[in-house]
């Protein structure tokens, strides 16, 4: 048996990706705070370490050493399960994102992704939705009115954005002719296909904002109305898990968006230095994260019934139209 190929390499790869992701998540919080600070004519955190670089570490230490409180009135198993249900999908989503082309190491060809699944796009959609259950269960199990309202909003939000999002992805599949993410990245596209793809990107991005519960669609937690919505009864480490999964979700969705819309790891000189692909992907993800934060600093929050109306009355017809035109383009031009 090929122990090396079946076990050792995936484990090592998984460990490295996990480590990278978690570090990136920690520093994403710093990135967001710094950037928000700049948008708001402030400096952002700059006390812990040079340029505040140790801030995530300090935050983590603070959260880990907090007392674990489980309130009396909660549904305990579900209450404890919920944070994990948001963390795991956020992590699992990254499994199908190719980090770069295959590299040759120790005489083996090692693909730079956890799994090259041939239904990867479907997997992304499916796993991405599972995270919502975590939020809903947390709201339900907390047995708190605010949490319940937050959970209610999440379910309302989910059905409004997931349909248009799915339809945009279907258009993408049509355009690419494959559901494998690796192939979507590696295959070339004619220039008009790229143009058409980017035309649809703003609308897709809106659904992504809703998927990640980011501003202006962050109403499941809305600190101004529901205080923190579903997170209200969670403290210490459990809160940290929610927090980490939220930011992790941002990174992984950023990775998915970069891969589907912007050619993933592709860039100049990648054929000569395959590891450069990882850098390109990271830069693309960073650009998308910057967009996330920029939006947060610039626009007010949508009311949840307005998102539903927007989702059903604007985004859904638009995505259908987009799908139809894509189909025509594929038939007549490809």
């Amino acid at each position, binding site marked *: 048996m090929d122990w090396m190929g079946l076990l050792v390499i995936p484990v090592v790869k998984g460990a490295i990706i996990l480590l990278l992701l978690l570090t990136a998540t920690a520093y994403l919080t710093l990135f967001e705070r710094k950037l*928000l600070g700049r*948008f*708001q*004519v*402030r400096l952002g955190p700059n006390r812990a370490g040079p340029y505040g670089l140790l801030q995530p570490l300090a935050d983590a230490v603070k959260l880990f050493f907090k007392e674990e409180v489980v309130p009396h009135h909660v549904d305990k198993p579900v209450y404890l399960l919920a944070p994990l249900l948001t963390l795991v999908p956020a992590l699992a989503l990254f499994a199908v994102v190719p980090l770069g082309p295959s590299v040759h190491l120790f005489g083996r060809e090692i693909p730079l992704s956890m799994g090259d699944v041939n239904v990867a796009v479907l997997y992304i959609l499916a796993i991405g939705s599972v995270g919502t259950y975590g939020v809903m269960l947390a709201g339900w199990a907390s047995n708190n*009115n*605010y949490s*319940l*309202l937050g959970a*209610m*909003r999440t379910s309302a939000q989910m059905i409004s954005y997931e349909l248009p999002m799915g339809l945009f992805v279907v258009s993408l599949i049509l355009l690419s002719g494959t559901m494998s993410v690796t192939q979507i990245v590696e295959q070339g596209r004619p220039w008009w296909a790229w143009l058409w793809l980017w035309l649809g990107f703003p609308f897709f991005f809106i659904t992504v904002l809703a998927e990640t519960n980011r*501003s*202006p669609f*962050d*109403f499941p937690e*809305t*600190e*101004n*109305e*529901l*205080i923190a919505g579903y997170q209200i009864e969670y403290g210490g480490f459990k809160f940290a898990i929610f927090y980490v999964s939220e930011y992790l979700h941002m990174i992984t969705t950023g990775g998915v968006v970069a891969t589907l819309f912007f050619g993933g790891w592709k860039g100049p000189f990648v054929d000569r230095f395959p590891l450069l692909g990882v850098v390109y992907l990271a830069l693309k993800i960073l650009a998308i994260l910057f967009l996330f*934060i920029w939006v*947060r*600093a*610039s*626009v*007010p*929050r*949508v*009311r*949840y*019934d*307005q998102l539903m109306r927007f989702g059903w009355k604007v985004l859904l017809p638009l995505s259908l139209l987009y799908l139809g035109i894509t189909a025509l383009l594929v038939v007549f031009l490809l």
Partner: protein
Amino acid sequence: MPLEQVLDTPTAVSYTPDYEGERAVVETLRQRFPDAVLATEEFRGDQVVTVRADRLLDVARFLRDDPELRFNYLVDVTSYDRLHLGETPRFATVYQLHSMPYNRRLRLLVPVPNDTNPVVPSVVELWPGANWMEREIYDLMGIRFQGHPDLRRILLPHNWDGHPLRKDYPLGSEPVPFSVNWSEPEFQDLGRQVLKPELPLENVPRGMDPEKYIVVNMGPQHPSTHGVLRLIVELEGERIKQVVPDLGFLHSGFEKQAENIRYKDFVYYTDRMDYTQAMNNNLGYVLAVEKLLGIEVPPRARVIRVIMSELQRLAAHLLWLGTHSMDLAGSGLALLMYAFREREEILDIFEMVSGARLTTSYIQIGGVWKDVPPAFERRVRDFIAYMPARIDDYERMLTRNPIWRHRTIGVGKITAEQAIAMSVTGPVLRSTGVPYDLRRVRPYCGYEEYDFDVITATDGDAYARYMVRMGEMRQSLRIIEQALDRLPDGPYKAGPKVSPPPRELLDTSMEALIHHFKLFTEGIKPPRGQVYHSIENQKGEFGIFLMSDGSNKPYRTHVRGPSFVNLQILDLMSRDHLVADLITNIGSIDIVLGEVDR
């Protein structure tokens, strides 16, 4: 709520004060109700009519509905205890009325018949805005209002013992325990002296059904209630059925304090009421004292006061803009810090003239505390030069932003008639199309000489309120510019009888030293009488009812805070809206709990 009955109120506003008409109204009342009118009095231009309690409703209804009178706006209801005045009966309630179409003001004084169980008829059915004002009197003075729909304590805890504004209620305080051991007897009664512990708190307000709907408690610790406001909200899903505000978490008994300190010393308390507009509150109180004294301040002081008042209005509007946009957007929105950046500039100017940024206490009886420094004018001119562009920036972020428009247009809509009936003032009233602005209606500090517009909107929703406030910021800049142009030279405070002589004089002038000594040991002694004076602060009509018994302490000081009165309309605004809109409404009414609770 008998709000529907009063909705035929006129919404026109006259800008010419009709003092002759006020005298005529008093005469009309004398002739029409010879048995009800007990006495009339004119003091410092205020017309006071004493009315028998059992005829109050007849007189009030006549005043409100007669087409020649139309006292459609109830400014204030207050009361006082005449125990030390030697008058009988002991209690009296005071109604301050204003007729918007004719611009007349009138004060009704109603002696309350029974000393042990004082009862007067409630005017809530005539002016629904009297609701909370009467509850406040019930709470603090113990006068009951017959026919009031919801007579409960409002500021004090429900199990408070006694009514603090009565003159025989000791000023009192809780002794400060000096022990470090919780089992010490010193601690046994801590916080329990004045409460009746046996009364249990009702969990859910009357009229709410926790079995059928979700009843959510918002606050007093809630990020969007702008302080320690507690709202009990009945929800059907996310739709609001009813909102019951619970006030008083910040109640500090300012009015009781005022009765026990000299006139000058209360200026510092007014800072702490609406802490976002110390200057305006100083001004309102100081003007009332000056009216009581019957003095004029020098022209330079008047202009400085206008500049300070408008800067403060601007600063408070900026604070409102930042926090309101944050309410609707979350803490990420950059506008909060932009607004704070400009507000800092204004606070720097305040620091320059008064040494303080927030609680300035700069405007003093007889003038201002100190003259403005030489660099002041250039600093303010710099500020008003770049500020319009900044306001344009804010508007670029919000005014045409589709999300902002969706969140505010049609939210918290009220009509002009509803607003007047509920005694709402300020931008909230002006957003319904009623151009009621005291700077025009009853000009003070020479506002009639300035060229500015009263900004109004027509829709009466949160977006209209936003537009009105943005417009008012620009108008404030206009006023400041005109004031700077005409800033005259000369003294900045009135003579030594009311304001202390400058420090330099104390070393050389015996007379100045004597005045200084008299002012700080004895204080000023206004003649016996009562006045009401109100100004337009950033939130609405800020009124002070001041009563002197001839001593150096006010016999009664009552504050009519715009936040307190305006907050009443929250329930009406928010019904059938979503929870998110409730936050919008609280923000767009613009309250400061320090003033609501006082």
